[in-house]
């Protein structure tokens, strides 16, 4: 048998007779009860403050939420994805397959880059929504949107192809739920002076443009950063 320390039970009289503490507890639950009953008779969708009635009454989703994927277009309606496959390589669950292709003749203006993705598949059954693909994308084309109702009746439908990913973006755009451009991360790196200045400039421009709701600025900043990194190396 294991050793056990001897525990002395020292109860006060109030604790000993059960009823006092139970009465206190009853008072507490009664307070909650009356509060919530009163609240539930109020008009409106969200009456009891802690209870969301799901399909009608949804809680606010953070704009940076990591939900279903979408492939972004730029302001001119051009596809941003160049089919580089960085996302597929960064994915820990190996759920993305990308095929790189060249745009057909006469369709070059549909794409922002010189190349495009011929096919883009995300297997939502494998995806763990970690956001690594989003971080890896050099063009800011693949982002995780705010959709979280991803149940389907057939498993095949859970493999999102390019059309679906683009449709996700269109829908999000129509509903105004686009992901804000990523803020540049202030990085502590040598040499400090140059870098800090660049970071500040990038941040300033980013905040200006973010106010206008355009996605271009941070990409520039990112490019700058990338260039700087390359130069350093």
């Amino acid at each position: 048998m294991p050793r056990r320390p001897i525990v002395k039970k020292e109860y006060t009289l109030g604790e000993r007779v059960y009823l006092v503490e139970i009465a206190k507890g009853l008072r507490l639950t009664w307070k909650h009860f009356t509060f919530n009953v009163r609240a539930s008779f109020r008009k409106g969708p969200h009456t009891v403050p802690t209870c969301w009635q799901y399909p009608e009454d949804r809680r606010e989703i953070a704009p940076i939420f990591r939900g279903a994927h979408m492939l972004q277009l730029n302001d001119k309606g051009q596809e941003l994805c160049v089919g580089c496959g960085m996302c597929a390589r960064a994915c820990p669950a190996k759920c993305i397959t990308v095929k790189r292709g060249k745009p057909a003749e006469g369709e070059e203006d549909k794409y922002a880059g010189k190349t495009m993705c011929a096919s883009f598949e995300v297997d939502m059954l494998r995806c763990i929504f970690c956001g690594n693909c989003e971080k890896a994308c050099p063009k800011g084309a693949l982002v995780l949107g705010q959709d979280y109702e991803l149940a389907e009746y057939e498993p095949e439908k859970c493999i999102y192809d390019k059309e679906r990913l683009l449709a996700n973006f269109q829908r999000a755009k129509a509903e105004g739920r686009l992901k804000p451009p990523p803020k540049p991360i202030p990085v502590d790196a040598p040499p400090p002076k140059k870098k800090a200045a660049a970071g500040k400039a990038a941040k300033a421009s980013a905040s200006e443009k973010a106010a206008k709701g355009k996605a271009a600025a941070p990409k520039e900043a990112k490019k700058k950063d990338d260039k700087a990194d390359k130069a350093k190396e």
Partner: protein
Amino acid sequence: MTKELETICITTGPTEVGEYVTLNIGPIHPAMHGTLRVITQTDGETVVSAKPEIGYLHRGVEKLGEHLTYAQFLPLTDRLNYCSAICNNVAYEMAVEKLLGIEVPPKAQLIRMIMMELARIADHQVCVGILGVDLGALTPFFYLIIQREEIYEIFEWHHGARLTNSMGAIGGVEADLPERFHEKWPRLRDTIRKANDETDKLLTHNRIWMDRTIGVNAFCGDDALDWGFSGPMLRACGVKRDLRKDEPYLMYDKVKFEVPVGKHGDVFDRYMVRMLEMEESIKIIDQAYALYKELPDDAPLMKKVPKIIKPPEGQIYHAIESPNGELGFFIRSDGTDKPYRIKIRPPCYMVYQAFEDLVKGEMISDLIACLSSLNVIAGELDR
């Protein structure tokens, strides 16, 4: 009758058949938090032996880690202790940073601290709530879990996920504290305190609760150390040990907080230690937030790390105080972009192996109470 019932359950390993009834609790059972399984021999309602069987949630995380890059392994750490994923994230990030030999900027450290303490509160809330549920008091669970939702909202606005956080990256954190946190925290602090207070009112002095918890599977401190206990479980046994104080990491040496210590290591002490720790966590967050405010807005959040992380050859072990205790990552690098060997030291693994010693001679109801108070998380236990 005993013999007849015997044939229904599948027993693994040698079990004594005879005057005792084998009761197979789990892996599917309301109180077995996920997929734990305990094969008990009972004499009436008294537990004669209890042999935990684990491995029902074994996903081979350590093996997977050998085949993923350092950055790719980060999301998998969410799935260890899913009640406080951020602590796992930070533990792993800090282990890799130690391997790389870098120190993250102070602002990132403070953000990590704040987020980790929030995660600790969330974890303790779940643990205390579940303990209540398993002892028949469902109501406090809801009061606590509602506050956890609010904490999750802060997580969501900080890095975009509620449960599987994958917070930050190797080298720092990627986002500053969100607007939500600044708005929400002063109010949230009060509501968390209120919820804890209500739980306290409903449970702590209630004689039914006291009878159920005081003196139930009490445990000696030196036994606990021998079994490799850590965290709240060890502190409940009366050993004052907290990695935040003993081996300070991040900026824990710059904040003041108490380490609540129990006396007998019984369920009541574990419950009280967890309740008090939530209060201490609130204090830590307040102090860390004050320190955070002193830093300039554009202070760096990340240390520059190369895109493909290739640490030098070597091996390190780094442990932090997760809500359950010492959560350590042993990483050996062979100079490539993938870790050679990752070993996770989950805190509840060490605690759960002493389960038989903890519950021997107690009753079945105490077994359930004991299991809930240990806060064994199957994801962390089986990896």
